[in-house]
């Protein structure tokens, strides 16, 4: 037996030993455990990244008032929880435990399905009530003065419609932040459509505000004639 053959035999023997040790200590059922851990880690890292991005958006949205701190604190809590869960999963020694813990990334956090949509919908609601509605009200006042000054009563119906649309948007959206912030992963687990009513309300409000904006532009165009 030459040197190369001896070396090859030694490698084969070592590989057989390693496989034997793996099978002997962890068992066939634990095959795949590293893959479960890696997938869970990847899922957690992605969610933590998305949460940090959302925190940045909320931090830049001072018009959100008290909702700003509420949401940011909630997201920091989720980041802490996900980080701890990742440590737990990486320490798991059986496939069954790792799978069960990995499922918690979904069932106990619902970052994509619930947390991030809630953050963005609360921001949208606050944008409507704290910025858009006040600005529309200011525009209404100014356009009313201009209509009166230029004696253009035929433009009044645009203004009336504008006020109606803005009022409807404000009334519909005002309760949303409190309702949305009260939702938890348990809420979502019980009803996967739990966000749909709020999303539809915001869609209606956006449609109303677009119409109000068109009214304003129509008034401006009418006044310029």
């Amino acid at each position, binding site marked *: 037996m030459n040197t190369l053959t001896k070396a090859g035999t030694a490698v084969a023997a070592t590989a057989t030993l390693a496989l034997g040790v793996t099978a002997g200590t962890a068992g066939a059922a634990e095959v795949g455990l590293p893959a479960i851990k890696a997938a869970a880690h990847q899922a957690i890292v992605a969610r933590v990244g998305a949460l940090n991005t959302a925190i940045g958006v909320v931090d830049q949205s001072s018009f959100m008032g008290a909702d700003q701190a509420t949401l940011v604190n909630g997201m920091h809590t989720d980041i802490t929880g996900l980080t701890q869960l990742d440590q737990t999963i990486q320490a798991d020694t059986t496939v069954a435990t790792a799978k069960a813990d990995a499922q918690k990334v*979904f069932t106990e956090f619902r970052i994509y399905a619930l947390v*991030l949509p809630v953050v963005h919908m609360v921001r949208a609601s606050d944008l409507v009530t704290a*910025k858009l509605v006040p*600005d529309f009200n*200011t525009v209404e006042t100014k356009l009313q003065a201009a209509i009166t000054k230029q004696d253009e009563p035929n433009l009044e119906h645009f203004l009336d419609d504008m006020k109606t649309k803005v009022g409807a948007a404000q009334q519909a959206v005002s309760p949303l932040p409190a309702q949305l912030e009260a939702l938890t992963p348990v809420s979502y687990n019980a009803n996967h459509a739990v966000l749909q009513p709020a*999303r539809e309300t915001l869609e209606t409000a956006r449609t109303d505000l677009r119409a109000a904006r068109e009214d304003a532009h129509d008034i401006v165009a009418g006044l310029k004639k």
Partner: protein
Amino acid sequence: MVALAVLAAGCGGGAAKNVAAVSPTSTSAVATAAPTTTSAPTATPAAAAATTPPELSTIDSDMTSLDGSLAATDQARTQSDG
């Protein structure tokens, strides 16, 4: 999931259409039209200023931001169930 995708697509389309229809073009058109309008005998500088409340530009900007928040909402919801 299909409904959400359609909703998201609808929002995106609406947002794009909205942005295209809104300020940069129409505001600049109004701004450039002002001197001509001002020179017309029926308009005055005060009237021109009164007819274009500056808050309208802010509203246009905030509407775009609203579109962004709702698009982000739909994107997260369609990305994963968890």
